């Protein structure tokens, strides 16, 4: 492509305040208008797939859980779906409800996290702090269920690892009331905010044709009027047994993506409520005993907060996969920038980059190393003490 004399290259990345992770976008701009965008992924390498092929099925669940710190249940869920698909394994009904509950809670916290980040990216730090404050009770629900705020370790081939006993269901019900009122408040506040609306409407539009042609998934496609949702199209777990709507908007811009995510938060709270009701009545085991996985292939799909996450495993009858392939939603959503970012001002292009909620560590599966020095406070002890306190509060 021939560039005019006024063209300028603006590098966004590999390290840039817009991106939490290493990623590189090269914007060609004329004045303030973006005329071309070049995407370069592959700045992280963690070898998750290879490591997973050295581990047993149960071990690799913990591994794929660490592909991403935010959608840390989508990957294990898709992974166990894939392994179960090899032998068409069934899971107990109660386990299905627990899986769905966790998946939907994760959607709530992930969308709230995105809302906050989007606010930060357009210079609206108050929205950022508020959204993250109200995300906190959701993380507390995770702690009540699993003892962890982020990596829950709940999925197993054939069911889930831990049961949610009646006392905890009651406690969860109470926290969900708080979550419900808070998310209704912040969803209403964000959707009725005239300043936010005027800033985001019509920005970074991805047309329906482009969304289909580029195989966009998740809220990115649903904001462009493509009603793809694995939860409805191929209902696994308890999704066939709960009532919810797929949110679709037709504008295709950043505002529509925001609306889709906010309304999905409300749908997710509905699903969580139904799951908790069912957990009070549906009794039974939570884990089928799976002795062995036969040789074959399996695919697992799950609608992660960012879109469809896809796992493929090939087995040879041993206790580990001989091939494990992961495709994260951001991998297909990132190329849509070439359609949505051209011909708009820099300020709009950058919020459009953030609007698909890209997750680069999902896309490339590199390893994040914790700092050597965690300060004088031992966070692990703090965390264990808090979990213990919650346990005592619930069980008296």
């Amino acid at each position: 492509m021939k560039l005019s004399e006024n063209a300028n290259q603006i590098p966004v990345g590999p390290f840039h305040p817009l991106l939490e992770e290493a990623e590189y976008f090269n914007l060609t701009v004329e004045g303030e208008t973006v005329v071309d965008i070049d995407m370069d992924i592959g700045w992280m390498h963690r070898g998750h797939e290879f490591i997973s092929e050295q581990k047993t099925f149960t071990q690799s669940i913990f591994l794929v859980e660490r592909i991403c710190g935010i959608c840390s249940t989508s990957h294990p869920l898709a992974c166990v779906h894939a392994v179960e698909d090899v032998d068409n394994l069934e899971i107990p009904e109660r386990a299905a409800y627990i899986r769905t509950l966790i998946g939907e809670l994760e959607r709530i916290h992930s969308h709230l996290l995105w809302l906050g980040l989007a606010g930060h990216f357009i210079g609206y730090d108050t929205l950022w702090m508020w959204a993250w404050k109200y995300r906190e009770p959701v993380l507390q629900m995770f702690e009540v269920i699993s003892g962890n705020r982020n990596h829950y370790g709940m999925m197993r081939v054939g069911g889930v690892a831990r049961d949610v006993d009646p006392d905890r269901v009651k406690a969860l019900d109470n926290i969900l009331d708080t979550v419900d009122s808070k998310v209704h408040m912040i969803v209403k506040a964000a959707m009725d905010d005239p300043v936010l609306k005027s800033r985001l409407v019509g920005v970074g539009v991805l047309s329906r044709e482009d969304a289909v042609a580029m195989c966009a998934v998740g809220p990115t496609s649903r904001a462009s009027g493509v009603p793809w949702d694995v939860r409805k199209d191929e209902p696994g777990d308890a999704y066939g047994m709960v009532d919810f709507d797929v949110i679709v908007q037709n504008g295709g811009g950043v505002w529509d993506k925001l609306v889709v995510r906010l309304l999905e938060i409300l749908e997710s709270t509905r699903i969580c409520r139904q799951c908790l009701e069912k957990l009070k009545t549906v009794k039974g085991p939570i884990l089928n005993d799976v002795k062995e996985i036969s040789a074959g292939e399996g695919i697992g799909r799950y609608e992660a907060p960012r879109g469809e996450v896809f796992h493929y495993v090939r087995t040879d009858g041993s206790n580990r996969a001989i091939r494990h392939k992961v495709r994260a939603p951001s991998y297909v959503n990132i190329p849509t920038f070439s359609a949505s970012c051209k011909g708009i001002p820099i300020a709009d292009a950058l919020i459009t980059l953030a609007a698909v909620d890209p997750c680069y560590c999902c896309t490339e599966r590199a390893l994040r190393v914790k700092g050597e020095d965690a300060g004088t406070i031992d966070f692990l002890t703090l965390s264990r003490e808090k979990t213990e306190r919650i346990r005592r509060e619930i069980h008296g």
Partner: protein
Amino acid sequence: MIGMKLLSLAGFMAGAAILGLVAGWVDRKVSARVQYRVGPPFFQNFNDFFKLLGKETILVRDGVNWLFVAAPLAAFGMLSLLTAMIGTALLFNRGFGGDLIVVMYLMMIYSVALVIGGASTGNVYASVGAGREIKLLLGDELVFILVCLVPVIQSGYALRLEAILAAQAANGPVILSPSGFIAFVLGLLCIQAKIALPPFHIPEAETEIVEGPLMEYGGPLLAFWKLNHHMMYAVYPLLLVLLFFGGFRLEGLGILWAVLKYLGIVVLMILIKNTNPRVRIDTALRFFWKIAAPLGILAMILAVLGV
């Protein structure tokens, strides 16, 4: 005699710097409370400033280095002069013919220094930021001049700060009249743009162009830019107090009034800052030229008509 003058200039300089750093703390604290955070301790801004002073100065190899170094210092000198002029008028009721025009010029020089300093490095983010700063200046300057004209007209076409104060002492503060109120609201927004606070922090947009013109600055030079930023926090609201609230007297209840007037404006600025996302540069220009400028002209006409 000249020694006394220099001493008083230094006094204003230090006063504005300290007041600015404290106002910056008020900003950070109130913002933090609005956002459910705790906020920094009182001396944080001072500590930041002195810490930066002790760091290394890094120059860009291919940049125009004397401009790079001179820009923050020139801006600092300009702000000190501005403080001295506004402070003298406020505290001692003294000025010279046409000093309001000098004030308006000096306020523009700050933006020019920022543009020159940023562009001298040749950094791509800095040049985009410098371009945005110029556009923003073109947007808010016209409105700000119109805003300043309202108190001038109301005080009988006096271009002296001291005469504007005297007229307000006689006829009541400018803000109480409809034209004065419109002008004050517009002036507040102009000041927001001049200090580059949200929603007008377009030239320095951190998540877009990584602090824009300040991209290559570090160490003592960055310390001066930060100090300049805080000094504007002190001086610009005081200018509004002078133009629209009739100044203050530093005796008895007057001290309380002075603090209330100043803090009132600062808190208004903080609230605007915390309830708005960053606007695009074209939206900002459209706002200043199509909405704010006609309103400014309306305020001016109302002032001529005497309301």
